[in-house]
């Protein structure tokens, strides 16, 4: 195993993560960065780099570079916004890892914050904002396909049709993810989800029902990235960044290509596994970006865990659930039952698992953890492999 980079995550800060939270995204981000710096044992004055995650899918309350002033940070060596849609969190962490590896900065905080929920209003208003758009992509609004659920429903519908599968495979993802959420005190939905609960919930966009869609919250998550050497002496067990790769398919929208099912994980997996010598069999846990239940199925196949149409086997008979017989998946409840903070949701859970600080949901094997981020309608993809302290060097 050869790590691609000499970098590690040494601090984790989370604020909000509820629908009743009413502070602004900027204030939530400020508090999360302070919490992450404190968690790392360096305090806010130890931060010399700041990276803000930006996504077009987030609400209008975007973060600006003046977060530096709100934090009272002087003489930063790095302050920038990273935009890769839903893949912005891993892209930001990668930028931080490169910066510390190159000596550009020492302790870089990466933060994502969003406040799409107005307490007391319908959740569906959070992400279905009215748009017209430009060009051919704007025709999705002419077709009435506004929120992320509607376009990911197209991927789900085609996936089920091509492989002759039923909606039960989506139900298995939602039910398994809820079982993990029941063990996470920060999760939005903690009541067990029965198959009948799943199927009696209303459709949002066929074949996606209510529990196939992410649980939006207001909140922020920050992590602190430093070099591997410094991480070894940190206040927390270091979480090594073993590998990172992006994969942006750019599949044309015409016959001969299958854009709705072409997942960038195939390209990212090839890069990460080739460069580290790791294989899918080395992965103990997957923390997938699961804003919609179809997404982990496509990720499992693109990363080579299963051939096309067979990812449902990862979930069958509760195999990926707590106490299951196979690889645990989305152990904090993911976006579906946990909380939707885009790419930072799977990152935070991977850090907790790698530290063996995940409480009742701690997995026995948590040495090597795959994290994925997705943006657009499967247009932009990033993957990262984390290694627990002392396992890999």
């Amino acid at each position, binding site marked *: 195993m050869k790590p691609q980079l000499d970098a590690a995550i040494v601090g984790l800060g989370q604020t909000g993560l509820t629908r009743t939270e009413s502070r602004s995204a900027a204030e939530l981000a400020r508090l999360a960065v302070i919490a992450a710096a404190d968690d790392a044992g360096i305090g806010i004055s130890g931060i010399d780099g700041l990276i803000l995650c930006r996504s077009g899918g987030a609400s209008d309350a975007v973060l600006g570079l003046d977060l530096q002033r709100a934090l009272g940070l002087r003489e930063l060596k790095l302050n920038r916004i990273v935009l890769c849609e839903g893949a912005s969190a891993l892209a930001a962490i990668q930028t931080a890892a490169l910066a510390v590896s190159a000596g550009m900065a020492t302790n870089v905080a990466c933060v994502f914050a969003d406040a799409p929920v107005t307490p007391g209003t319908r959740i569906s208003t959070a992400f279905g904002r009215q748009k017209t758009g430009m060009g051919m992509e704007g025709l999705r609004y*002419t077709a009435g396909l506004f929120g992320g659920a509607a376009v990911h429903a197209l991927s789900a519908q085609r996936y089920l049709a091509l492989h002759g599968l039923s909606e039960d495979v989506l139900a298995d993802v939602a039910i398994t993810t809820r079982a993990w959420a029941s063990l996470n005190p920060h999760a939005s939905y903690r009541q067990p989800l029965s198959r009948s609960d799943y199927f009696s919930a209303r459709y949002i966009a066929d074949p996606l029902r209510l529990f196939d869609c992410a649980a939006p919250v207001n909140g922020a998550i920050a992590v602190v990235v430093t070099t591997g050497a410094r991480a070894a002496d940190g206040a927390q067990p270091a979480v090594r960044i073993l590998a990172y790769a992006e994969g942006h398919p750019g599949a044309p929208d015409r016959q001969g290509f299958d854009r709705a099912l072409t997942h960038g994980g195939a390209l990212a997996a090839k890069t990460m596994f080739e460069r580290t010598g790791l294989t899918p069999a080395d992965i103990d846990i997957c923390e997938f970006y699961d804003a919609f239940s179809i997404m982990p199925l496509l990720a499992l196949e693109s990363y080579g865990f299963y051939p096309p149409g067979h990812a449902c086997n990862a979930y069958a008979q509760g195999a990926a659930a707590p106490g299951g017989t196979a690889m645990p998946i989305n152990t904090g409840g993911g976006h579906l039952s946990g909380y939707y903070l885009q790419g930072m949701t799977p990152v935070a859970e991977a850090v907790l698992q790698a530290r063996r600080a995940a409480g009742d949901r701690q997995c026995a094997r948590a040495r090597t953890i795959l994290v994925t981020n997705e943006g657009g309608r499967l247009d932009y993809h990033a993957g990262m492999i984390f290694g627990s302290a002392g396992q890999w060097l």
Partner: protein
Amino acid sequence: MAMTSTPVPGADPASAHFFHSLDEGRLDLLVCRQCGTAHLAISVCDVCGSIDFSSEPASGIGIIYSFTRVHIAHHPAFADQLPFCGGIVELAEGPRLFAPLLGEEPISVGAPAIFEWQQADGRGFAAFRVSAAASQ
């Protein structure tokens, strides 16, 4: 509920010809003069790199690449149609586009679909009529 028109996007340079033709009631292709690939909106052919295209009328015949029935109206134009169907149609000539889907349900992936010109606020747009019977 006040009626509001179906939103139709503005043109960008690649799609100017496509939207201009639809405003006049036609569904046109831009066919690459070098390699013959049919596009709907294009500046540089992604197959061969040519920038030379000829406008040709599309057959208006296609199949459902994928679809969904939507149960939430995020725009007032769709409020009195719930639930309604939208999806991606693959034209017989190859290109795909998002479009409202009209006609009988159930719709299925691969079902035949026929172009039906519609208008909203002086703009033209492409909807497709799906025949449930023909999809069996």
